[in-house]
């Protein structure tokens, strides 16, 4: 099986080709079967490859397969080669596993949509690109996948392109990502400049074998730091961190399964994967690591505060995703690469679950997304309610569920590595996370206050094809924590599995602090989570506290959050409008209309003018022509006489 692992990405590619070329002529059942079947084959192959990988000794746990030489120019060579190491294996399992569930769910959610085959063609293409991204053996091929997922994200956000909001959201995502991608490319140039190769293993080898040539750049900004920072800017764009997070909330215009798969579980985690995959580089650049941690934690808290007051069910989850990605970056920034990956995995489960649950609610309410128009859904949609509740408890970090373990590991690593301020911010973010998810559940499923009309009575429970993936994801959200138990409770299997791939001295993972402190910290963070949930209960269940009164007490703060800190408006004023103004005034009205058109029209005008003068010669009168004839003859004669 290990010889055949490289086929994993090609199943979805085949699915894409079939659906893209003949999908419209196939019956609906065949489309669903092709779409889900190709992903299922990938998933099964991934499972077998995983088993094969586990049979290898620790230090030999990687497969590599060169399919063909892509670019060979002078000393530079880039192969089209796929590889698997424990890190990419984890990613592949998450992508194909969650991807399969979401494909199955989508057959129910997208049922009856006129673009059904197109939807699954894009979805399969996305999986191919994403698998290329994580299985690439060099940065260049990774970049191919990176751009591929960006393209699919654009296509799927704008899937309902007849809606102007969807079309412009897709455009926004594409443009914002370009900023990050430009920095990423510059980073690749710098990598090649320093190492002469873009191969992961070549670069890691160079870093380890020549420590004098590539020293740890403490307290200085060297080339390695610059490279790491540029790669991080790329990750910031893809993973929606400050200041490039603005595209992700708008991306919710896409179909909900897309939000779950691309904008929560897989694509947006590509930035985390990139940083972890480049861990050898990042650990040489402490300044870059600090930047990653601070930007991550800032984003985590910032996005959480916005999530507190949003009304759209998907936007709450979108800001929550931005926030959770911030936690992952904070973790990898302090050297807790395993912690970041752990949260990536558990987040993929429970956030996909929450998104799909939200999709189920929207489906049941025929497109209603405003939380304040929902309510009482607990009775109409009991199964959706149950699984959403599990997802909410998981993300809030209630002890025993997966989110508790992964978030707690991050917080503990922040604390034990001495980043006390980040730890405090992380606790505050955790409280807000618990609050806004609990608020979401209570508003959607809880009873309405007296005198308010709820739309809930029109709801219907979703079909089994949608509920079964939800149940599986709910089970995973409960159980996934057991792969990374803290030291005081058991073994961290994920850390054992990943550490050979991380090839770095993961001291960050073994910071100061004894078991008792760790237990105390865990107790504190779970207490904080319960506090957040309790506050939400007081506001939206017992209604002892009135959220409107609170908003009235702090009108500016409320408006600040409601309007998302006016960041979109700020960007519009600072970047978009000047850009449009320059494009319009300078490039269009001046350069294009005056200069270019002037040149073109000027040529025409000169010729027309010349013709206007010369056409007088063509009088139509025979005698004029005869006169010209004589004049010509006389001229020739004169010339002959004089010369």
């Amino acid at each position, binding site marked *: 099986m290990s010889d055949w692992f490289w086929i994993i990405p090609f199943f979805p590619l085949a699915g894409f080709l079939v659906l893209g070329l003949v999908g419209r002529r196939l019956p609906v059942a065949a489309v669903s079967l092709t779409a889900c079947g190709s992903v299922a084959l990938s998933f099964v192959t991934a499972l077998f490859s995983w088993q094969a990988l586990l049979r290898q000794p620790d230090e030999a746990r990687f497969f590599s397969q060169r399919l063909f030489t892509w670019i060979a120019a002078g000393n530079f060579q880039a192969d089209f080669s796929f590889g698997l190491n424990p890190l990419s294996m984890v990613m592949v399992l998450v992508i194909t596993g969650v991807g399969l569930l979401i494909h199955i769910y989508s057959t129910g959610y997208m049922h009856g949509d006129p673009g059904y085959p197109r939807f699954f063609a894009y979805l399969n293409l996305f999986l191919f690109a994403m698998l290329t991204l994580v299985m690439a053996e060099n940065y260049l091929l990774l970049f191919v996948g990176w751009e591929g997922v960006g393209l699919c994200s654009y296509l799927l956000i704008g899937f309902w392109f007849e809606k102007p909001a969807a079309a412009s959201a897709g455009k926004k995502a594409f443009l914002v990502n370009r900023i990050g991608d430009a920095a990423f490319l510059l980073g690749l140039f710098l990598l090649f400049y320093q190492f002469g190769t873009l191969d992961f293993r070549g670069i890691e080898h160079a870093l380890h074998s020549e420590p004098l040539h590539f020293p740890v750049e403490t307290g200085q900004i060297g080339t390695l730091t610059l490279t790491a920072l540029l790669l991080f800017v790329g990750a910031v764009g893809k993973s929606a961190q400050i200041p490039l997070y603005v595209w992700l909330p708008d991306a919710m215009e896409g179909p909900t399964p897309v939000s779950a798969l691309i904008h929560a579980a897989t694509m947006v985690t590509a930035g985390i994967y990139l940083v972890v995959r480049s861990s050898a580089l990042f650990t040489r650049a402490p300044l870059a690591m600090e930047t990653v941690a601070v930007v991550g934690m800032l984003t985590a808290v910032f996005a959480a505060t916005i999530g507190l007051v949003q009304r759209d069910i998907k936007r709450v989850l979108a800001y929550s995703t931005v926030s959770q990605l911030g936690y992952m970056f904070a973790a990898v920034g302090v050297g807790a690469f395993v912690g970041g990956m752990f949260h990536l995995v558990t987040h993929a489960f429970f956030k996909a679950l929450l998104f799909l649950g939200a999709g189920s609610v929207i489906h049941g309410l025929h497109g209603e997304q405003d939380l304040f128009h929902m309510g009482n859904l607990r009775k109409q949609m009991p199964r959706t309610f149950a699984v959403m509740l599990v997802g909410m408890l998981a993300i809030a970090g209630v002890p025993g569920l997966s989110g508790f373990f992964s978030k707690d590991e991050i917080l503990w690593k922040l604390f034990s590595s001495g980043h006390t301020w980040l730890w405090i911010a992380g606790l505050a973010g955790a409280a807000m996370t618990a609050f806004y998810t609990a608020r979401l559940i209570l508003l959607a499923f809880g009873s309405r206050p007296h005198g308010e009309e709820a739309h809930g009575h029109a709801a219907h429970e979703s079909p089994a094809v949608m509920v079964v993936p939800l149940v599986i994801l709910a089970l995973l959200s409960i159980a996934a924590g057991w792969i990374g138990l803290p030291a005081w409770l058991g073994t961290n299997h994920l850390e054992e599995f990943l550490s050979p791939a991380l090839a770095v001295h993961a001291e960050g993972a073994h910071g100061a602090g004894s078991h008792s402190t760790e237990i105390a910290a865990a107790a504190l963070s779970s207490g904080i989570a319960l506090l957040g949930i309790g506050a939400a209960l007081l506001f939206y269940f017992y209604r002892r506290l009135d959220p409107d009164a609170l908003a009235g007490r702090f009108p500016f703060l409320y408006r600040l959050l409601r309007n998302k800190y006016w960041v979109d408006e700020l960007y519009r004023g600072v970047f978009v409008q000047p850009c449009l103004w320059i494009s319009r005034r300078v490039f269009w009205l001046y350069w294009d209309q005056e200069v270019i058109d002037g040149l073109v029209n000027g040529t025409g005008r000169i010729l027309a003018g010349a013709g206007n003068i010369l056409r007088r010669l063509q009088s*139509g009168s*025979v*005698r004029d022509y*005869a006169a010209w004839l004589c004049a010509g003859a006389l001229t020739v004669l004169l010339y002959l006489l004089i010369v």
Partner: protein
Amino acid sequence: MTVPIIYYLGLSALLFALGSVGLLLKRNLLVQFMCVELMLNAANLAFVAFSQGRADGSVIVFIVMAVAAAEAGVGLALVVVLFRNRNSLDSEDFRLMKG
């Protein structure tokens, strides 16, 4: 004693000038046509004058006469057709090709 060539050439130039002035100043197509014939014959005279005692110039004269005859046929036919259609022979009435 032979007549010096300059007299022939002078006469030829005079005829040619008469023909061209007539072509330029007259407005009747038929007259203009006759002026062209006059110019052709002026050229013929020059040829004959130059070819005193030689044959090549005289041969060219015959060719010119043949061409002139053909041209007269075509030209007169055109004049007749024009007059039938437009009832006029004033060349200033025919300015359809004005640019």
